């Protein structure tokens, strides 16, 4: 990755975000766009964890759940404005990530997978069972963000869809920028090194345990913020946000797009978000096609969409 490529990637994304609405025939497209960005944010976090540091998680939706419910509960019980609730959720997620990360990050591969899976299930179980607090499986309502009203006060009238499109895009771009910074930094390089060989990483002075924890916490914060944004724009949140299926969905997005590359993973997120919307035409065959697409992408582009395509183009160039 060359030095400038960070800005090239960011600029490409930003231009895309800005230009796309010109082609939107209706407000619904803003909603889909916003969803893509919200997912893109969570997936970017997973790229840091899986792609950089080589640690798997099948429980990241748990952090999304914490972020989501923070925005539902904090305004109601603590009187916190929703915007600050996002930060509160992120802080709780980070704290939890530290607490559970310390013991479980010693595990490897599938053992780590099952431990994170367990964490995710615990979170979603608490959200489901503590009905008095969380509304149980039926979920609970979430207050809207005051910002939109403030903007309106300044004469900036955005529909809910437009508003969330902009907000989510900004959040994602910020997340991508940070992830790309990390990639080229000492910390990011050290993460990728431990992915390659833990022993060797240790012998050059890398504190492997600490680094894994950092990756875990950072990705937890990404997931948490993504969950918060989702809850806020849906104005409603259910335990599904923390569910196993959501965790799997996020990992799939990351791998499909190319878990080593931030922009690739965001692309993966976009595809898996769009696909069900496109497939409504074949309602009956939706699952069939979805499964098939996943298989085919992995067969023909085993390192994920973007990295594989990039490698192919490079190969041809040479």
């Amino acid at each position, binding site marked *: 990755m060359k030095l400038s490529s960070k800005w090239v990637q960011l600029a490409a994304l930003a231009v895309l975000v800005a230009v796309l609405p010109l082609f939107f025939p209706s407000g619904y497209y803003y909603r889909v766009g916003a969803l893509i960005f919200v997912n893109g944010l969570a997936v970017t976090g997973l790229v840091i964890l899986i792609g950089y540091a080589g640690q798997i998680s099948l429980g990241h939706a748990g952090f999304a759940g914490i972020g989501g419910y923070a925005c539902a509960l904090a305004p109601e019980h603590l009187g916190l404005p929703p915007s600050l609730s996002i930060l509160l959720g992120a802080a709780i997620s980070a704290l939890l990530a530290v607490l559970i990360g310390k013991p479980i990050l010693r595990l490897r591969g599938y053992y780590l997978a099952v431990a994170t899976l367990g964490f995710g299930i615990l979170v979603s179980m608490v959200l489901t069972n503590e009905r008095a607090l969380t509304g149980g499986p039926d979920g609970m309502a979430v207050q809207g963000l005051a910002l939109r009203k403030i903007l309106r006060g300044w004469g900036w009238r955005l529909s809910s869809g437009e508003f969330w499109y902009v907000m989510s895009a900004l959040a994602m771009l910020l997340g991508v920028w940070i992830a790309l910074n990390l990639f080229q930094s000492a910390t990011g390089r050290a993460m990728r090194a431990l992915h390659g060989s833990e022993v060797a990483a240790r012998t050059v002075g890398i504190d492997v345990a600490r680094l894994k924890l950092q990756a875990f916490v950072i990705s937890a914060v990404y997931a948490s913020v993504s969950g918060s944004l989702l809850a806020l724009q849906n104005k409603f949140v259910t335990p599904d946000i923390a569910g196993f299926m959501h965790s799997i969905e996020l990992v799939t997005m990351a791998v499909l797009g190319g878990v080593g590359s931030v922009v690739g993973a965001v692309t993966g997120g976009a595809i898996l978000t769009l696909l069900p919307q496109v497939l409504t035409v074949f309602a*009956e*065959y939706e699952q069939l*096609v979805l499964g098939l697409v996943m298989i085919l992408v992995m067969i023909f582009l*085993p390192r994920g969409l973007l990295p594989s395509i990039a490698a192919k183009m490079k190969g041809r160039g040479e």
Partner: protein
Amino acid sequence: MDALLQFLLSGVTVGAVYALVALGFTIIYNASDVVNFAQGEFVMLGGMITVFTYQAGLPLPLAAVLAIAITSLVGVALNKLALEPARGAPVVSLIIITIGASIFIRGAAQLIFDKQLHRFPSFSGDQPIHILGATLVPQSLWVIGGAVLVFIGLWLFFTKTLTGKAVLATANNRLAAQLVGINTGWIMTLSFALSAAIGALAGVLVTPITLVGYDVGVGLALKGFAAAMLGGMGNPKGALVGGIALGLLEALTAGYLSSQYKDAVAFIVILAVLFVMPQGLFGKSTTERV
């Protein structure tokens, strides 16, 4: 006291279901390091195909055999059409393929069959067996017996047969396996056929107890995966013990603590075990010299 016994019987029954699913994971994992997340769909296919062929008028045993055979073919097809073409891809990519396959098979099942729940009659009737004030349905014995038999079969396969060793060798070092003359492609085919057959067998045995529908696979795969990891992935003994332990944990928690949090307690225990034994109860730590 009879309550405790009832909890234990319930735990063993459910545990045997998990163990059967977990045992199905072992072969493919041992051959390729891939946890096949479509394993639950094999269980579902075993149950569904039996239901529909039975309803179509086939005698139950024949329907079951047919279901197992067809599911094995599906397993082989999964390997040939989806995993083999992706050979050399990173393991995460292979896992995503199995997840994709699981979605695909589920989608196909909902089209070919339906979205209803089904069951077929228990093999030996529904008259409960009374044991010291607790009860057990005869089908539970079928499930438990099935789990134990599959375990013994797998254990013999991996420790006593050269083919079993070849399976392990293929996962451990594919290049070296080819150099010693192992047809790794065939080993993979065999592994998928066997795994799928075990999955389907599980489906046939458990359907009278758990019922079957096109989407029961995910839940079963999840529990089976947790059980396999608790016991130590790849080890048949681990799968059996892990499955039964998970079932017992859930039943005892439901009986004595809280039915709401029984899955939670089970996972907390798994986390605690992994904290002490990072390779599960019977998992071998891989020796990697530097």
